[in-house]
């Protein structure tokens, strides 16, 4: 009886059973009424038949008829009256016959009255049974309706709305008293599922923290010995500890450059790990793009001059601001300018330009006049540790992580990054930021501290 299924099954059977039972009783009562009525009618016709009989004309046919009438009578009183009548008919006693006929008639009348009474009783019973046929199943259906609504439909509704909370990452609700039936099972399963999700999320967070900690510790551990290495090489190459011959100096230079490369690699890996673990915590502030690009290109001027490459900046008419982490966007721009310079020919021009693309997005492009990038390479270069050869076909001394980091940073800002290029026609690297606005004068005063 514990399960809803059992309860509902029993109720349905009870509905059917009770409807059947009372329906059957009604049917039977109706048949009985018909029977009573037929008895009544028969009694009336018997009285008519008897009153027609004239005992003077004795007749075999009449005698047979009388005997047939008697055989149909079940009640002993009526049979006796009939027998007496037949006896009088056979005895040819006219006066006796009429007396017995009157007696028969009297008994039949009393019988008729009894049938009428029985008829009334039977009719009342029929009404009762018909009433029960409607009432009992109806009542049971009501109970069934209650069970289905309260026991099944309402809990299902609750379950469904609580499950929708999962969609907004809410896993805290638990069913405190699940009943001991199928709905209860569902609720208990819900509780277990929610807990499992929470536990998984906790695990993932812990894993994430562990990874960040590991990266932080690892990079620290790697930097410590590198400090001594870089330190000793620096002392050697600066002749502080004495003169070396040219070959020795060359060796030291190689070691120094590779050490620097290792240092950059560690920095990049640390960055990348932080970005991937989403523990980067980007700031989002409105900052001037003009100031940022000016500062960045000025910072790259030294590198550009050394490579005999010219930098130029193309600005839009209005002064624009973007919602971004300025340091990180500077990192992206620096990376793209640095690549452009590396891959430019001597006396080449690297152009930095930015303009609004539509109401939502602003685009920043860095174009160079280098060799261009083939279609296969366009996707490859944004992958980790991938590099192409530079404008002199020398393997570039980078870490191969710059574009991967830039890509991750741009995507953290919900922007897009990519390259337009044809072999032999230079390349234009572009990225978009999702929110921009025109700098207004009141904001000027507020932002004056931010800009520098």
């Amino acid at each position, binding site marked *: 009886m514990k399960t809803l299924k059992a309860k509902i099954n029993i109720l349905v059977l009870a509905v059917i059973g009770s409807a059947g039972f009372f329906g059957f009783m009604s049917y039977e009562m109706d048949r009985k009424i018909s029977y009573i009525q037929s008895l009544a009618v028969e009694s009336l016709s018997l009285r008519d038949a008897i009153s027609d009989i004239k005992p003077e004309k004795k007749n075999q046919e009449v005698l047979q008829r009388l005997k047939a009438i008697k055989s149909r009578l079940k009640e002993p009183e009526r049979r006796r009256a009939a027998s007496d009548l037949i006896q009088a008919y056979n005895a040819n006693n006219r006066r006796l016959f009429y007396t017995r006929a009157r007696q028969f008639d009297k008994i039949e009348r009393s019988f008729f009255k009894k049938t009428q009474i029985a008829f009334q009783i039977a009719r009342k019973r029929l009404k009762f049974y018909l009433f029960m046929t409607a009432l009992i199943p109806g009542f049971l259906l009501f109970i069934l309706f209650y069970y289905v609504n309260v026991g099944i439909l309402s809990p299902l509704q609750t379950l469904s709305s609580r499950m929708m909370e999962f969609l907004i990452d809410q896993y805290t609700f638990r069913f405190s008293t699940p009943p001991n039936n199928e709905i209860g099972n569902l609720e208990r399963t819900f509780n277990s599922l929610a807990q499992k999700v929470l536990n998984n999320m906790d695990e993932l967070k812990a894993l994430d923290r562990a990874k960040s900690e590991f990266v932080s510790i690892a990079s620290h551990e790697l930097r*410590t010995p590198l400090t001594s290495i*870089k*330190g000793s090489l620096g002392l050697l190459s600066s002749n502080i500890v004495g003169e070396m011959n040219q070959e020795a100096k060359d060796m030291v230079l190689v070691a120094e450059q590779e050490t620097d490369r290792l240092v950059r690699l560690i920095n990049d890996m640390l960055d990348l790990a932080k970005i991937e673990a989403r523990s980067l915590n980007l700031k989002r502030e409105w900052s001037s793009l003009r100031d940022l690009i000016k500062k960045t290109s000025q910072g790259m001027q030294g590198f550009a001059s050394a490579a005999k490459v010219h930098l130029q900046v193309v600005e839009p008419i209005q002064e624009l601001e973007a919602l971004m982490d300025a340091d990180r966007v500077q990192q992206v721009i620096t990376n793209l300018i640095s690549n452009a310079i590396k891959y430019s020919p001597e006396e080449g021009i690297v152009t930095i330009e930015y303009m609004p693309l539509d109401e939502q997005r602003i685009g920043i492009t860095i174009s160079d006049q280098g060799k261009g990038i083939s279609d296969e390479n366009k996707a490859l270069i944004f992958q980790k540790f991938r590099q192409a050869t530079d404008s002199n076909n020398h393997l570039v001394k980078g870490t191969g992580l710059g574009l991967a980091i830039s890509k991750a940073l741009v995507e953290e800002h919900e922007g897009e990054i990519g390259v337009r290029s044809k072999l032999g026609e230079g390349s234009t690297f572009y990225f978009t930021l999702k929110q921009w606005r025109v700098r207004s004068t009141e904001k000027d005063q507020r932002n004056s501290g931010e800009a520098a």
Partner: protein
Amino acid sequence: MKILLAEDDPNIVMIAKMVLSKVGGHDVDVAVDGGEALHKALANAYDLILLDGMMPVHPGVEVCKRYQEQKQGPQAPIIFLSAKSSPEDISTFMSLGAGYIQKPFDPKSLCSCIDDILRQAA
């Protein structure tokens, strides 16, 4: 300048001391852990204190805080030397001391780096 160098790694001590004295002509005093660093810093007058981020007894940040609380008389500027690079760490260093030099550092430019930082702080 009279400089206090607090650093537990003997290699780095050797390198830094060599650069600072030979290139910069500075007078370098060494402490190998946070306790010794604090003691010497409070007891003597220095023109500059270089603090390693991670040392036994007290880490650089704690030495700095205690020094700033307890020092009688003029306080020397403090530059942190650390392998840590997260923005949180850097802002901690910057808010406490005059400057920050990331490890690994280039010994050739150590002196000019220090001069730049001190000049900017002044």
